Structures are given as C-alpha cells and as structure tokens.
C-alpha cells in the first residue's frame, strides 16, 4: 500500500506559520504608518483593524499548531490538549471577529459616504448662500448710495436756485460801476455751474444701468421653469403655466428672481406627491404684477407657516433654514410682497406681488424687451 512522508506537511507548516507571522506583522506596520499619515481616513482605519485581526489570527494559529506538534511528539498531555482546545476555540473567535470587522466597516463606509455627500452638499449650499449674500449686499449698497446721492442732489438744487435767482436779481439792480457787481456776477455764474452739474448728475443717475434691468417677468418665470422641468418630470408632476398675455416688463434683477423662483418651485416639487400638480400663474392686479405658485402637496400647519421666514428654521433634514429668508429678501429688494397660504393635505400657494412703481405701468403695455431699450423715466415716477 502507498505511504507518503509527513515531511512536506511539516515543511509547509513551519514555512507557512513563519510566513504568516512575518507578513501579518509587516502588514500591521504598513497600516500603522497609513493611520499615522491620515488618522481620520475610514479606509485606513478599517484596514488597520482587519490587519490587527490577521495578526491575532497568525499568532493564535501558529500557537495552536505548535501545541499540536508538541502533542504529536511528546505524547498525550491533558494540559497540552486543553491548551490546544483553548487556542482552537480562540481561532474560532478570531475568525468571527475578522468577519464582523468586515461587515461592520461596510456599514460604517456607507455612513461615511453619506456624511461626505451631505458635507459636499452643505459646502455647495454655503457657497451659493455666500454668493447670494454678497450680491444682495452690493445691491442694497448701490441702491442706498444712489438714493442718497439723488437725495443730496435734490436737496442742493433748491438752495442753488435761490442763490442763483437772488444773485441774478441783485446783479440787475446793481450799478455797472459798483465794485460788488463783479462779485455778484461770479456768484451767479458759479451757482449756474453747480446747477448744471447737479442736473447732469441726476440725469446720469437715472440713466445708469444698475442691478435692475428692463426684464420681462414672464420670461424670467418661463426660463426658471425650463431649468427645473427635468426635476418636475422625474416626479411625474404636471406643471401648468398660465402667463399674463402681455410681457410684464419692469426693472427686475433676472438672476436674483431666478434664484428665488427656483427655490420656491423646488420646494413645491419636494412637497408634491408624484402625479400631483403645480400651477404657475402671472397676472396684473391693480398696482401689482402678481405671480402665484400653487401646488397640491402636503401643505403646512399654521405654526410652520408662521416660522417659514424665520432664519435657520427648517423642517428638512440637512436644510439650512435660509432659503425662504433669501426669497423674501429678494422680493423685498424688488419692493414686492410675498405671502404664503397653506392647508395641510391641500397644498400651498405662494403669492409674490411686484409693485408697479417698480414695474412701470407704461412698460407693462410695452411690446417687450426685444422692442428696444426703454427710455429712462423723465421724472421720479420710476424711482423712489
């Protein structure tokens, strides 16, 4: 009958045990270095734990096989048998620990990835908010400065009229030989120069292209809806538009209004169940251009509606609570009014009214921005 030597088994046993010990400790050295380099890296932490499991496994496995060899060579010793069994049991435990480490880190990795995605989203939102904030600040500052300058110009013009008028009257009443005539003439001349400067300044200030340009509200709403159409379609929501038949041209900030409308429509999409409806409507109502966004979503209870415009108040997980605050600020900058009407289970209607003093009545009837640039208002009708 064939018999095979036990030597190859011993050879591989010694070689295998040594190799496993050496490689597992070398691996641990590598993972420790990786951990030292980047202690917050979840992957390195996982590999470090796994390697630590392998190190314990290599030691336990080697020990149990050494004890087995001792039993084979030195006969049956109850103590050695017990040790062999203990290490056999320990091997079982370490296999379970290795498996648990892998499964546990799988869950941790999913959480880590979600956290990273949330972090990325928050960073993006934060950048957007920062940019929007800067834009709003610049807008407010420009308009304030412009108003102040116009106010000052207006204030200077009246005393100048008085100075100019009286100096001219005095000049007419003064003898040609009077030495003060030259002085009065200089006063009248300088008053006229300042008056001309103020008039030029007012004309420039009124003509100046600011953050608010001649824009069609219907066009802005239409563009925003086109931008968000994929999100609406993805949820199988029916989007109904009902625009005022004529262009609602006025002095609007296209970018800011698009930001505000995007936010409101996204909110409506989020709140509306699939196969629901969102209606966007623009009409002219007395002195206002009125825009309504109506959804058939879950709606909000009165206590939530009350706090919608409170900074940092949010009902969304990961929300900043600043979206609606910015929306209101944008509407405010247009000297408009925003109102919210919501019923739980019925939906929400957001109404934005932009006053005609900002959307010139004359411009409402204009054929649209494509008809050419609008003339600046002659008087303060379009301004404050």
């Amino acid at each position, binding site marked *: 009958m064939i018999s095979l030597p036990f030597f*190859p088994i011993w050879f591989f046993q010694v070689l295998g*045990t040594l190799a496993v010990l050496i490689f597992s400790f070398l691996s641990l050295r590598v993972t420790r270095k*990786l951990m030292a380099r980047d202690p917050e890296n979840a992957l390195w932490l996982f590999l470090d734990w796994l390697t630590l499991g*392998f190190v314990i496994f290599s030691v336990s496995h080697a020990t149990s096989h050494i004890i087995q060899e001792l039993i084979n060579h030195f006969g049956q010793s109850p103590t050695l048998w017990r040790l062999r069994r203990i290490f056999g049991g320990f091997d079982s435990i370490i296999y379970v620990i*290795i498996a648990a480490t892998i499964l546990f880190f799988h869950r941790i990795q999913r959480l880590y990835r979600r956290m990273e995605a949330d972090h990325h989203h928050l960073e993006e939102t934060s950048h957007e908010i920062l940019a929007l904030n800067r834009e709003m600040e610049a807008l407010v500052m420009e308009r304030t400065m412009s108003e102040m300058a116009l106010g000052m110009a207006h204030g200077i013009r009246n005393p100048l009229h008085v100075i100019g008028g009286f100096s001219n009257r005095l000049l007419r009443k003064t003898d040609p030989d009077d030495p003060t005539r030259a002085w009065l003439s200089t006063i009248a001349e300088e008053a006229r120069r300042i008056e001309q400067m103020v008039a030029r300044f007012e004309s420039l200030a009124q003509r100046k292209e600011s953050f608010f340009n001649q824009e069609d509200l219907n066009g802005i709403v239409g563009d925003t809806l086109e931008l968000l159409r994929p999100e609406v379609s993805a949820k199988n929501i029916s989007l109904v538009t009902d625009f005022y038949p004529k262009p609602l041209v006025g002095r609007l900030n296209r970018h800011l209004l698009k930001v505000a409308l995007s936010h409101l429509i996204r909110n409506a999409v989020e709140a509306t169940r699939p196969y629901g409806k969102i209606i966007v409507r623009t009409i002219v109502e007395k002195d206002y251009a009125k825009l309504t966004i109506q959804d058939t979503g879950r709606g909000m209870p009165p206590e939530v509606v009350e706090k919608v415009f409170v900074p940092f108040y949010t009902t969304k997980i990961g929300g900043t609570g600043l979206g609606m605050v910015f929306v209101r600020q944008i509407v405010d900058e247009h000297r408009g009014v925003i109102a919210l009407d919501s019923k739980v289970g019925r939906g929400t209607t957001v109404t934005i009214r932009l006053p005609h003093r900002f959307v010139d009545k004359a411009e409402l009837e204009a054929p649209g921005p494509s008809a050419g640039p609008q003339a600046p208002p002659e008087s303060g009708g379009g301004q404050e």
Partner: protein
Amino acid sequence: MKRRLAQIFSGVLALLLYSPSHALAQGWFLWGTEGSYVHQLAHLLFCGAMIFFIYEMRGEKLQRYRGFGYLMWGCGILALWNLDAVVGHTLEWGRMNRTMIGHGLSERLVMEDWETWFYYITKIDHFALLIPAFYLYYRGLKTLALESKFEPR
C-alpha cells in the same frame, strides 16, 4: 488595571487547564461536539466575509487600483483556504487513528483510501495557501500606501 486584567486572564486559563477532565482522549475537537461546529461555522463565516469583501471591492470598481487588486487576490486565496480548512477538519476529526509508519522526520502516512489522500492534500494546503494569501495582502497594503502618497486626498 493591566495587572488586574492579567490576573483575571491567568485565573481563567488555570481554571480551564486544571479543571476535571473526562473527554480529552482524542482530537482537539471531536467531530460532533459543539466546539467543532462552532469552529467549522467560524471558518465558513470567515470565508463568506472574504467573498463579501471581494464583492464590495468589485462593486466599487477598485480592481483598477493595483493595491486593491492584490488585496482581492489575497482575500480570494483566504476564502479558498477556509473552504480547504472545513474539508480538512471534517476529514481530520472524522477519523483519529490513521495508520502511520516510521518515527520523527521519516514518519509516513499510509494511503488507505481516498479520504486519507484528501486528508494529506488538505493538510499541505492548510499551510501552503496561507503563504501567498498573506503575501498578497501585505503587497496590496504596501502598494496602496505608495499609491495614496501620490494621490490627492
């Protein structure tokens, strides 16, 4: 604290080693005992975890990185080693009194039947498979460490 832990550990060990014995005659686990099932199941769990780890790495398409490639091969061999160990243990614990001739280094195993052949092969595999598995695992980590040095975080 460390001293107390060492005391507890040595106490438990002594209790285990010197407690009255009645079933120490054969094998480190007798096939059919609870310990033998736990050990075999632990091997299968270890094998499953390795396969799951490979599946996860493939799912993330990490094989394009050389380091993860080595890790996958290392884990694959470890999974195979576990299956080999399950078969080996079953054969080893199934029959304790194999016919041996000679002594010491010249000891030989008589190949009585196919089971003994399997036992002999799995016994060699049990150690032979671990060498490439741990080498590839180490190489994988080493390559990952090198690759990560040049990649932005």
